[in-house]
C-alpha cells in the first residue's frame, strides 16, 4: 500500500479515528491489528516473513533473558575467579543464541536478496544451474534491522527483553515505518506505542502538515524527475554528452532526497498524529561539509545502526586489535592505531554497499564512499597546512561554501554506481563527464527529450527551491513551529498550498497511482 495512494489515506484515516475513540488500554492492540491489516493488504509474503521474524527474535530475547537470570543465580556467593569463569560460560551461550537468531533472520534476507545474483553468476561461469531467485518482500530489510537491533541490545543488557509477544510484535511491525524506515530503537519507541494517547490538536496539525510536506516532495519533485533519471542514468546505452550526465546526476540527488525524505516525512507525520515520536532520518544533508558528515545526516538511523552494531564491534574485535599491533610494528604507533579504524570503516561500507543491492556496482559504490572518508582522514593534516599557507580561515563563509559544493559534487559523482544500468555503464558515464563534457549539450534541447517536459522541469525546479529554502529555515528550528508562531491563518494557508501543489503539479502514473518509493526495494 503506497503512502501517497488514496487507499493508504483511507486506511490511515480509519486507523486514526478508531484509535482516538478507543480507551487507552486498547489503543496499542488496535495499532497491532492495524499493522497486520496493513501487511495482509499489502503483501501476504511480507506477513509470513514478519511472523517468522517476530517469533524468532521474541523467543531469542527471552532465551537471552533466561540465561542472564540463570547466570545471576549461579554466580551468587562465588569468589571473583569462579564468578568470572562462570560468566564467560554464560556469555558463550548467549553469543550462540544471538548468532543463531541473527543467522536465521539475516540468512533468510541474504538468500532472498542475493540468490538470483549468485545463480546468474554461476551460470555465467559455465555451471549448469538454472536461474533461481526469490522476490524479496518489500521493506523487509528495514524491519529485519530494527528487530536485530532489539535483540543485540537485549544481549548487551541495555534493557530487559519484552515478555509479551503481542507487544513485541507491535514494536517490530509499526506500520508507518515499515516501508522505508526510519529504523527505530526499542527503548525509544516501545513505551510510546504502549502508552495512552489522547488527541492533541497541535500534534494532529503538525503531523498532518508533515504528511502534506512529504507528499509534496514525493509527487512534485521526485516523481517529476523520475523519468529523466530512469531514461538517462539507468539506460543501457551511453550516448549523451558528459554535461548531460552530470546534470542528470545532480537531478538524481534531488530526486532521491525528495523521494526518500518525502516518504520519511509521511511516516513521521502519521506517527505524530498517533501521538508517537519517531526518530528523524535526515538533517539537511546537502549542507554537509564532508562526505563523512553527509553520511551522519542522511538516513541517520541506518548509519547509527551500522555504527552501533557493526562498526564498533568490528573496530574493537580481536582481529582488528591484532592488525593494530602488526601495523604499529610496520608503520609506527600513529598509523598502527588508525589502520584498524580505516579497515573497519571499509568493512562497514562494503556491507552498506551490498545492503543496497546484489550487484558489483553497489559494492563499488560502498567502497568508494568508504575510500573517500578514509582518504579524507589521511589527508586532513595536509588540508589544514595548505589552508593555513593560503591564509584561508576554516570558519570563513567562502571556505564553508566551497566545502558544501565540493561534498555535493563528489557525492553526485559517486551516486553514478548506485543508478547506472551496469558497472561498465557507470564508468562510461564518468568517462564522458571527464573526457567529453560538451557543455553546449545542456542548451540544445537534449534534456527535454528524456521524459521531462519544460513545464516538468520548471515545476520540479520550483519544488527543489522550496525544499532548499525549508532546509535553510530549519537552521532556526522547526519550520512548522515557526509557521505556528505566525498564527493559524498561515498554518491553514500552508496546508492548502501544499495540498493544492501536490494535486495540481504532482506527477501521477497510470490510474493516478504515484510511482513506487525508491527505498521500498531495499
Amino acid at each position: 500500500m503506497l503512502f501517497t495512494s488514496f487507499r493508504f489515506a483511507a486506511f490511515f484515516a480509519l486507523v486514526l479515528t478508531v484509535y482516538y475513540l478507543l480507551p487507552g488500554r486498547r489503543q496499542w492492540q488496535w495499532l497491532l491489528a492495524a499493522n497486520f491489516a496493513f501487511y495482509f493488504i499489502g503483501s501476504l509474503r511480507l506477513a509470513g516473513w514478519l511472523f517468522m521474524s517476530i517469533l524468532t527474535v521474541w523467543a531469542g530475547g527471552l532465551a537471552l533473558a533466561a540465561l542472564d537470570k540463570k547466570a545471576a543465580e549461579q554466580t551468587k556467593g562465588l569468589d571473583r575467579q569462579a564468578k568470572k569463569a562462570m560468566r564467560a560460560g554464560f556469555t558463550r551461550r548467549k553469543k550462540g543464541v544471538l548468532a543463531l537468531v541473527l543467522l536465521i533472520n539475516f540468512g533468510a534476507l541474504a538468500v532472498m536478496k542475493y540468490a538470483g545474483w549468485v545463480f546468474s553468476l554461476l551460470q555465467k561461469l559455465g555451471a549448469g544451474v538454472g536461474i533461481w531467485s526469490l522476490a524479496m518482500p518489500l521493506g523487509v530489510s528495514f524491519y529485519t534491522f530494527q528487530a536485530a537491533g532489539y535483540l543485540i541490545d537485549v544481549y548487551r543488557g541495555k534493557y530487559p527483553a519484552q515478555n509479551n509477544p503481542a507487544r513485541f510484535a507491535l514494536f517490530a511491525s509499526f506500520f508507518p515505518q515499515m516501508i522505508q524506515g526510519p529504523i527505530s530503537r526499542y527503548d525509544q519507541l516501545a513505551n510510546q506505542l504502549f502508552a495512552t494517547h489522547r488527541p492533541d490538536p497541535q500534534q494532529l496539525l503538525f503531523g498532518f502538515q508533515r504528511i502534506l510536506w512529504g507528499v509534496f516532495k514525493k509527487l512534485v519533485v521526485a516523481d517529476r524527475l523520475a523519468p529523466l533519471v530512469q531514461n538517462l542514468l539507468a539506460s543501457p546505452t551511453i550516448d549523451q554528452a558528459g554535461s548531460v550526465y552530470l546534470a542528470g546526476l545532480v537531478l538524481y540527488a534531488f530526486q532521491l532526497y525528495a523521494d526518500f525524505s518525502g516518504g520519511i516525512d509521511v511516516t513521521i507525520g502519521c506517527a505524530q498524529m498517533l501521538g508517537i515520536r519517531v526518530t528523524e532520518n535526515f538533517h539537511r544533508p546537502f549542507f554537509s561539509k564532508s562526505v563523512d558528515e553527509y553520511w551522519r545526516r542522511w538516513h541517520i538511523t541506518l548509519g547509527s545502526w551500522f555504527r552501533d552494531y557493526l562498526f564498533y564491534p568490528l573496530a574493537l574485535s580481536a582481529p582488528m586489535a591484532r592488525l593494530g599491533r602488526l601495523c604499529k610494528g610496520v608503520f609506527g604507533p600513529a598509523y598502527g592505531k588508525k589502520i584498524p579504524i580505516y579497515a573497519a570503516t571499509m568493512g562497514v561500507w562494503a556491507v552498506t554497499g551490498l545492503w543496497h543491492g546484489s550487484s558489483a556496482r553497489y559494492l563499488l559504490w560502498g567502497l568508494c564512499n568508504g575510500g573517500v572518508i578514509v582518504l579524507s582522514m589521511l589527508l586532513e593534516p595536509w588540508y589544514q597546512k595548505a589552508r593555513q599557507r593560503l591564509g584561508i580561515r576554516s570558519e570563513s563563509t567562502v571556505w564553508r561554501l566551497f566545502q558544501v559544493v565540493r561534498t555535493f559534487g563528489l557525492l553526485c559523482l559517486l551516486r553514478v554506481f548506485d543508478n547506472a544500468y551496469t558497472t561498465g555503464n557507470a564508468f562510461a558515464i564518468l568517462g564522458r563527464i571527464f573526457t567529453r563534457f560538451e557543455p553546449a549539450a545542456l542548451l540544445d534541447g537534449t534534456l527535454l527529450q528524456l521524459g521531462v517536459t519544460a513545464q516538468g522541469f520548471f515545476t520540479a525546479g520550483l519544488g527543489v527551491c522550496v525544499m532548499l529554502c525549508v532546509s535553510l529555515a530549519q537552521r532556526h528550528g522547526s519550520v512548522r513551529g515557526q509557521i505556528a508562531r505566525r498564527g493559524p491563518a498561515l498554518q491553514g494557508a500552508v496546508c492548502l498550498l501544499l495540498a493544492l501543489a501536490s494535486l495540481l503539479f504532482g506527477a501521477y502514473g497510470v490510474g493516478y497511482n504515484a510511482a513506487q518509493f525508491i527505498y521500498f526495494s531495499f
Partner: protein
Amino acid sequence: MLRDEIKEIMEELRPDLDMETETDLIDRGTLDSFDIISLVSELNDAFDIHISVEDLVPENLNTLDAMVQLVERHQQED
C-alpha cells in the same frame, strides 16, 4: 593520577576540547565514532583493560569523570 592520564589521552586525541568543562560529549555528538574507537583503544592499551562494545554508551563517555569511572570499574573487574 588516573584522571590526569585520561585527560592527557583526550587532549592528544582532541586538542580542541577543554575536558574540564565539556559535558555531553556523546549526546551532543562532539566525539564521533572514530574518536570513540581511538579513545577506547588508547584506554585499553594505557590501563591494560578491556573496554567492550557494551560499554560504549553515553553515560560512560559523556564527561571526563565518567571516563575515569569506566576505567576504574574495568580495573577492578578485569
